[in-house]
Every structure is written in C-alpha cells, then in structure tokens.
C-alpha cells in the first residue's frame, strides 16, 4: 500500500492545473463540470487509499511485507450472477419489462450469494488464525 496514492496525487495536480486553465480560458460550465467529476474521482481515490492504509499510501518508499493471512476465493458465482442480473435489468428497459424483474431477481440472488461467500471467507481466515501461531509468536519461538 505504501506510496500507492502518490502518483494519483501527481496526476490529480496536473489535471487540476489543466482544469484551472480551462476555467480561465473558456469559462464553459459543462467543461468545468466534466473536469470537476474527474477531480472528484481522484480526490475520492486518494482519500480512500489514505484512510484504508492509515496514511501509509501517502508516504514515499516501497511497500512493506504484510504477513496477515487472507483467504482467496477461487470462483464467485455470486459476482457473475449479480452482473448478469444487472445487465438483464438494463436490457429490459429496451426489450420488455419481464427482463427488468428477472434481472432484479438475479441481482438480489447474486448479491446474497456474494454475502455468503464473504462470510465464508472471513470464517476461513478466523479458522486459520486460531489454528496457527501468530507471526509474533513464531518470531518469539525462533528467537534464541
């Protein structure tokens, strides 16, 4: 995570400078609105990175080793189902109301399945934590 937000900040500054010149030069509301959306996205990304990394994303340097265990899903039928449901819902806007209801139903099912997958993922990590020694314990045991 360390340093991850820095290039985004540099890019945001460049875009901000261009937005300012556009505002001065053209004064066009829609154009400034376009830029403002992009700037808002960049600010949101930077804030999200800073908050989730406890500001490490704002510090220079290479990422440190992270030894926290994590469970990795192999497949996610829930995510695929939710996506197909969303697409069916949108398709239904042009091609019949049946698809709107069908798509919404699929989306709900898919999201429920994603919820179950995430719960299972959390349980796996907890199980791993309780069944294996923590990195601190390992270091203590290895110490002479």
């Amino acid at each position, binding site marked *: 995570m360390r340093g991850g937000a820095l290039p985004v900040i540099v890019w945001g500054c460049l*875009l901000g400078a261009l937005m300012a010149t556009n505002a001065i030069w053209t004064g066009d509301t829609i154009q400034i609105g*376009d830029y403002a959306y992009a700037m808002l996205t960049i600010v949101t990304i930077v804030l999200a990175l800073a908050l989730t990394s406890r500001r490490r994303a704002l510090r220079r340097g290479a990422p440190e*080793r992270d030894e926290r265990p994590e469970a990795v899903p192999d497949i996610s039928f829930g995510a695929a189902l939710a996506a197909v449901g*969303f697409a069916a819902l949108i398709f239904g806007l042009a091609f019949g109301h049946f698809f709107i209801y069908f798509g919404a139903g699929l989306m709900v099912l898919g999201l429920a399945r994603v919820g179950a997958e995430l719960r299972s993922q959390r349980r*796996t990590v907890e199980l791993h934590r309780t069944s294996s020694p923590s990195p601190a314990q390992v270091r203590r045991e290895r110490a002479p």
Partner: protein
Amino acid sequence: MSTVARPLPSSSRVPGWVGSLASTDHKRIGLNMGLCSLFFFLVGGLMALMMRTQLAQPATHFVSDETYNELFTMHGSTMIYLFVTPMALALGMYLVPLQIGAARIAWPRIAVSGFWVWLAGGVVMQSGWLTEEGAGRAGWFAYVPLSNSSNTPGVGQDLWTLGVLLAAVGMTLIAACLLATIASRRAPGMSVLRMPVFAWTSFVSVLMVVGSFPVLVVTMALLYAERSGAHIYVGSEGVIDYQDMFWFFGHPVVYVMFFPYLGCAAEAIAVNAHKRWFGYKAFVLSMLAFSALSMSVWSHHMFTTGGVTNQYFAFTSTMLVVPAGIEYFDMIGTLIGGALVMRVSMLFALGFFIQFLIGGLSGIFIASPVLDYQAQASYMIVAHFHYTLFAGSVFGFFAGVYHWFPKITGAFLRESIGRVHLVLLAIGTNMTFGPMFVLGEEGMTRRIAEYPQHPGWGTLNLIESIGAGIIAVAVAVFLFNVWVSLRERVPAGDDPWHGHTLEWATSSPPPRLNFERPLPPITSYAPLLDLRERAARDAGAAS
C-alpha cells in the same frame, strides 16, 4: 505480498469452462476478456470487409444505404467499446499483477462482475442486428439530434445506447480493480518508481478510465432518457453539451487504446534489445503528463461546431507532441547500443512506432483549427485515426501477443508464420489506410455509402478494399499460428527471452497465486536484469 491461508471451503475449484467463467483469478479474467475481445475484433473486421466491398467502386450496391449506416456505426462501436479498449484492460488484468509481484488482484469479485457486465453490453449492442429496424446507425458517437428517437427510431438504437452504457460500466469496474491492485498489492520492494513500463502505461490508462468513462455512462443514460421522451439535449446548446460530455470520454479513450499497447511495444523492444528501457523516469513523468493532457483535448473533435474555445483545445492538443516525443526519444535511446534481436515481437513493436508516427504527425495538422476545418468529415480523419488505432495500437497488441504468448500458454508462437503475419498486416494496413489521406485531401467525405465518379477515386478505393482483404488474410494467418502453436507445442520454459520483469520469474503459465518461488530482490524496474547483471559482475570478480 500476502500470506494465503488456504482456499475457501465453499469455493472448491469447479472444473471446466463453468468454473473458469466465474473464476476470480486475474489471469482467467484477463484471458476471458481478451478472448471475447478477439471475437469482437473478428466481428468488427467482418463489418469492415463488408464496408470495403461496398466502397470498392463508385456505384457498388452490395448493401443498402441503411445497412451501410449500421455497418459503420457497429464497426466503430465494436472496435472501440468491444475490442481495442477492453483488450488493453485485459492485457493489464493478466500482466500487471504479475509484473508488480502481486499474488492476486484487489477486489476480485468486482473484476468478475466487470467482465460480465462488459460482455453483456457487447451482446446487447450486437443484438440490435436481430431487431426489425436493424442495429444502431447513428455513428459510434451517436450525436444528438441524429440519435434521438425521431431521427433514428427503433429498438436497435436503444440497444446500442444501453449496450454502450453496460460496456462502459464493465470496463470502469475492471479499471477500478487494476487501480486498487497497483495501489495496494505491490510486492515488498516494488515502489511506484520500480514498476515496469507496461504497468505504468496500464496505471495511467486506468486512471483515465475511472476519470472519464463514468461520464459516458451518464451521457448514455441521458441519451436513453431523451429517446424515451425526456427533453434533455434541447436546442443548439443541448447538442454542444452532448458532444462535450461524449468527447470527455471519447478522447481519453483514444489514449486508453494507445498507452497499454505502447507499453507492450516498449517491453518487447527493451527485452529484444537486451537493454533496460532508456530514460525510465522521464518516461514515467511524460506518461503522467501525457495522460492528464489527453483528458484536456477532447473539444478538438468539436472545432467546427463553433461552440467551443478553439484556441485552448488547439493549444492542449499541440502540447501532446512533447510527451509523445519523449516516448519516441526513449525508444530510440533503448535501441541505440542494444544487442538487437529481430524477433517477431520486436518487428511488430518497431512497426507500432513507425506507423503510429504517421498517425501522430497527421494529428498535429488537425490539432490546428484552421486545417481541421478543411479536413473535418473527410477521409483524412479516417486515415489519421486508423493509423493511430490500427496501424499503431493493433501492431502494439501483436507485439505483446508474440512477447507474452510463451508466458501465458507455456508454448512459443511460430516465428516463421509470425513473419508472414507481420508482412501481410503491414502491407494490408498501408494499402488500406494510406490512400485515405489522398482521398481526404481531394475531398472525399466519410460515412457515405456511395461516392461520385471522380478521377482516381475508384482506383484508390479499390486499392483500399484489396488492402482490407490482405488484413483479413493476415489475421487468418495469426489465428492459424495460434492453432498450430497450441496443437504442436514447442515448450518455452519460464523465461525464454531473458525478460526483465517479474512475470518472467514464475512458471509458464503462472500458478493460481502467481509466484510459488520467492521473488527476486526488487531493486529497479527491471529486477531480473539486475539479477543477471549482478551474477555477471560476481562471476567477473571471481574470475
């Protein structure tokens, strides 16, 4: 980076294609997206062949005018929304986590959803062909008032609008995952200034995607509302507002369709020159400036509308030559003094740089409003953007395919067949798009199903149509090469080219969590080259 506890009990592997379609493995998602994009490339290419058959001679009635409108709309839409852009993201999805030493991507479920939403968008868009009124036919940009329900009635155009919306949502989700991966899952030691060149090109591309594609989603949603009876883009101001919103996506996407392929060509050149990429920091800075600038040039598509401040956009558009020049300078610097090996990937990469130059230089002319007024809506523009997107990006794509195919499949592509592919593609490309400059200069209008009997136009158009046929043969040769190479595999090993970046430090194809062996120390953007150089120095010192 991360210690993986164990696979989820609830997610035991599902064998076969069912499991692979819902796989959260970034390599599988990248491959799925890449293969679907390739299919759409063939579909879009077929449309191009039909258009070129229609235009081969002045009064050819191969298709009706309405069908021609559908063809050029769907060809452009298919190539942009369903091939070049998603293929760039697919390459990033497959390669970037490997290059930055990550075991997996961030937010894998979002990536799975992104792939499916994008694919569904493609299917929805193409399903317009099955409707009574036919597919979308208001151009890949769907300007209002042309695209409103009075001027383009029918469900086909609705499906086009919603298909583009879905494709844009899907690609934004994929880009968000890549951005989160680069920001949060780099291996220990992989600082941002040690990321490989391709990873940087992908990084700036995904920044542009998340910064501009949602505007397209809003634009398409409003267009759909307009087509459903709401009055949103009203009067001449509404028309300009639509274009301002559309091109705020429409120009950055051109660079999303360029940067990752530039990265492919750069990696191929550096590895085949046995030299690290020249001027890395200048390249990184220029990529950041290039991408920010390319978010600020969109209204050069609107010079002739009279509704935008031409001076500002002429200024920013012309400024693009500075970072572009740095990239060319870096490429030449890498070649000079290198031990060049002319593999097919290297030749495609050189082809990318040479042919993109034609597209880029013609871009400088039309960045000037005075000249753009003359060239607007002529074949000059068609030639310009095909030289950037086809003669440029697609050559970069093939450079990447020949470079990374051994990593992805564990087998080499046949070099001899690859050379035939390259030669045919180069001939076909220049035959097809070169004469368009002449036709444009002579005033041939684009987006027309028929053209007048003007001296020389028939011959030039015939040459273009033959060229398009040669491109089709070249693509067939490529597909044959893939088929032969996978059927009679020549094992490639883990690092057949003596690569510079981390993807070559793992097996071919890489395992589920990418790296089973410890990563080499990451001391620069070319860690494997560092390792070899250190070993050579140590051997020299010992002897």
